[in-house]
């Protein structure tokens, strides 16, 4: 099998700035690189035709190919210390909440030489029972297990000790909640050789994994670890529960070597040792923080207010933050390069891979009246989603057989490229973090998705090229700005544009991004929302780590899974998560419409309303005589489809908003959203429920601005119909021309 994969260190760069490209090849000796401007990524023969523009650039290729591995799985890492090297007798203690006991050996805490295994480790053995192992430099090893499997998703105090004087190994597990007739407490002793010294090896302590000679970590623990501690003496197994709760600074703790308190620094990737030794560490691959620990009672749901109840970290064997590949080449964005969506195309023989990014205008400059706001947060939210291969329900909601393309087959066989908000971890827990510092294989031109409707079936990045292709057809100058630019730069990233054009599905928004867009509108900016289900979920960028966002879908909304109770606050920022609608900022306030339904089979046309004859809307329908709008298209055969937004004054649609057209009939694959389904009753499907529709909306905003919203993901798929000569393209173009006119509304 030959393959090229790659990713960039950044998703947006201005002329003169450098983008690092990391590449991994399988069975490819060398590859060529081209810089391309992405114009229209849809390869559907019924569409306008694939278009990219090669930008002459010397990358110095061909470039040698090499394999760069991905190491999945999170763990904590504490650098070696003389304190660890001095250990002879020792005791290890923690509270654990395992999620997959019995599925292979899983290490809770280890300090081992990666090659020889010299050292110790506390683990769940292959049966899921607690075990403790000590191995000496002489090759002598001893391991003792309680022999009693832990029960999944229950808290236990676990301890392992080695008495180097007596030559005794002990291990103990104690459930924090005991059940009658369930015998899951266990203690065991083993006489072994004395003096199995830990000294002289140079090895870090690992939490949730153990080191290996050929990769950074193996035998990852799945589940939560709370209050891990190490002593320089064996522990009294009868007192392990009490030992867990004594303050690490307590005078009774003279032999305490380390006591990590995970309730400190929840928003960081650092772990803090509260013992006098201060053996702090860091986390690799972003295990989940801000999760309920052993002390959580339900009394408080906000970890920022009672961090003590959130002293656990949830480790997964499939966590991934940053692949950490070495750079293969870099691109200094040419000073003359126009703003746009670009990619480096890596290719060898029949293999190719696109690493896309935005080239924004020079900093402080606006080179067009229009900015296309590339919804990179939403791309990350769907990064490498496994919707087509992990969920049986997908076929029902798309109303047709799932089609798997080459990328899906690759993802199925290579889960190491990581997960996103639409996936579950191997242990069944939900994914809260998604990163772009890894190959995002579904964010490429030419890619075909699963939810894009009968026809082209595009989603997110490639679906948005339908808009890029339309702008190109118009020869309309435009800049490209990304979500990350809004997040990091603020209003100055977009303040000079007369109008902002969104992507087809800008679903994920941080508070900062929303603030910036709203501020732009408040100062007279215009917004063309050419999508559906936008501004729906609140996300949080990490305050320190680049390229990763968090999303917890609290309360309700259409979601792959709910967060667990007590976990509705983002660990990155402490923000309350969930729908923007539940956070007091429904999308209707910004765009006039809000999410009401989804279905992914066929789309429907809009029918104009009487309000479309209002003189205020005359410019929108200039040259459009039809009452039916968009009964054609590449995304389900109609302009209203996939995900639908409707006006709703109760949710903030401005009272002066004009609902210009509405879609009238959708299939019964379309259902109402849970947040509108307070009291489920028959008639919730697209052929019956009045609420299931797209509303096309226009309204004026303060200081001469205006908003035009289509409330449909499928809209952009209709633009190119009949060589861009159709009523959807005409309406969109009419709006664009007026929105870039400086005359105030």
């Amino acid at each position, binding site marked *: 099998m030959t393959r090229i994969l790659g990713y960039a260190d950044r998703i947006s760069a201005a002329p003169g700035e450098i983008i690092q490209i990391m590449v991994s090849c399988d069975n490819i000796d060398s590859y060529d690189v081209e810089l391309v401007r992405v114009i229209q990524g849809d390869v559907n023969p019924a569409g306008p035709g694939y278009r990219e523009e090669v930008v002459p650039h010397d990358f110095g290729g061909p470039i040698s190919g090499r394999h760069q591995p991905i190491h999945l799985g999170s763990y904590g890492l504490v650098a070696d210390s003389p304190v660890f090297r001095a250990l002879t007798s020792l005791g290890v203690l923690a509270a654990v909440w395992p999620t997959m006991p019995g599925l292979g050996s899983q290490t809770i805490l280890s300090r081992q030489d990666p090659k020889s295994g010299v050292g110790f480790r506390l683990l769940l053995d292959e049966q899921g029972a607690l075990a403790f192992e000590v191995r000496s430099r002489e090759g002598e090893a001893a391991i003792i297990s309680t022999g009693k499997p832990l029960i999944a998703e229950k808290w236990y105090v676990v301890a392992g000790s080695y008495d180097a004087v007596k030559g005794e190994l002990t291990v103990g597990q104690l459930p924090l909640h005991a059940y009658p007739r369930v015998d899951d407490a266990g203690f065991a002793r083993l006489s072994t050789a004395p003096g199995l010294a830990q000294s002289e090896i140079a090895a870090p302590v690992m939490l949730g994994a153990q080191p290996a000679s050929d990769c950074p970590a193996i035998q990852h623990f799945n589940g939560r670890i709370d209050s891990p501690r190490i002593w320089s003496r064996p522990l009294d197994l009868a007192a392990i529960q009490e030992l867990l709760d004594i303050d690490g600074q307590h005078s009774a703790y003279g032999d305490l070597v380390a006591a990590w308190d995970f309730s400190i620094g929840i928003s960081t990737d650092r772990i803090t040792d509260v013992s006098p030794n201060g053996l702090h560490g860091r986390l690799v691959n972003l295990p989940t923080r801000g999760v309920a620990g052993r002390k959580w009672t339900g009394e408080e749901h906000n970890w920022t207010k009672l961090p003590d109840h959130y002293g656990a970290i949830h480790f997964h064997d499939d966590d991934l933050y940053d692949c950490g590949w070495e750079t293969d080449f870099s691109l200094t964005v040419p000073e003359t390069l126009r703003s746009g969506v670009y990619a480096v195309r890596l290719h060898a023989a029949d293999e190719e891979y696109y690493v896309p990014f935005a080239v924004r205008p020079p900093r402080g400059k606006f080179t067009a009246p229009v900015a296309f706001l590339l919804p990179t947060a939403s791309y990350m939210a769907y990064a490498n989603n496994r919707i087509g291969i992990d969920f049986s329900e997908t076929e029902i909601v798309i109303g047709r057989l799932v*089609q*798997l393309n080459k990328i899906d087959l690759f993802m199925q066989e290579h889960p190491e490229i990581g997960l996103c908000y639409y996936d579950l971890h191997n242990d069944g827990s939900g994914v809260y973090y998604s990163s772009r510092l890894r190959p995002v294989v579904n964010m490429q031109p030419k890619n*075909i998705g699963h939810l894009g409707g009968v026809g082209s079936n595009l989603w997110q990045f490639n679906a948005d090229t339908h808009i890029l292709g339309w702008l190109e057809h118009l020869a309309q100058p435009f800049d490209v700005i990304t979500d990350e630019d809004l997040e990091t730069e603020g209003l100055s990233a977009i303040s000079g544009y007369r109008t902002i054009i969104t992507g087809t599905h800008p679903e994920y928004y941080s508070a900062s991004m929303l603030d910036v867009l709203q501020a732009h509108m408040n100062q007279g900016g215009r917004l063309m929302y050419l999508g559906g289900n936008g501004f729906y979920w609140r996300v949080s960028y990490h305050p320190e780590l680049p390229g990763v966002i968090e999303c917890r879908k609290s309360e309700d909304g259409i979601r792959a899974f709910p967060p667990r109770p007590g976990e509705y606050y983002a660990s990155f920022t402490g923000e309350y998560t969930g729908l923007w609608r539940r956070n007091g900022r429904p999308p209707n306030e910004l765009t006039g419409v809000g999410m009401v339904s989804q279905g992914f089979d066929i789309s429907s046309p809009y029918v104009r309303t009487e309000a479309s004859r209002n003189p205020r809307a005359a410019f929108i329908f200039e040259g459009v005589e039809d009452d039916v709008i968009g009964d054609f298209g590449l995304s389900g055969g109609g302009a209203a489809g996939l995900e639908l937004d409707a006006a709703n004054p109760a949710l903030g649609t401005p009272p002066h908003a004009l609902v210009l057209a509405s879609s009238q009939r959708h299939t*019964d694959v379309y259902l109402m959203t849970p947040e509108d389904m307070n009291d489920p009753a028959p008639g919730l499907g697209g*052929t019956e429920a009045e609420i299931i529709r797209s509303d096309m909306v226009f309204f004026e905003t303060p200081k001469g601005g205006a908003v035009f919203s289509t409330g449909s993901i499928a809209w952009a798929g209709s633009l190119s119909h009949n060589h861009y000569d159709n009523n959807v393209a005409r309406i969109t173009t009419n709006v664009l021309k007026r929105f870039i006119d400086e005359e105030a509304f």
Partner: protein
Amino acid sequence: MSRYQITNADLKYAAEFKEQALGYHSPGLQRVLNALRGGPKAGKYVLVVRKPFERWVLGRLPSVRGAPVEILEGQEFNNLEEAEWSVFKLRWKAHTGRELDL
């Protein structure tokens, strides 16, 4: 068992599906489709793209991540509606124990 059981009374919906596999369906056909398209992921029929927008081969999903998708060689389609009808018949037989002869 509350899950809908397909019977001969549903043959008219099978005929409706044969006529139009993609698009608006009667409530009766939608109910049949919900039953046929439900069930576990493991072994679920999918279409594997051989050539985008042109040619597909029938496949079945594996139960676990990392395992390859099973390709049912020889069961290729040049037309999506034809593929839908073919899988509809396979599932009809699996649910009812009888061939769907329409």
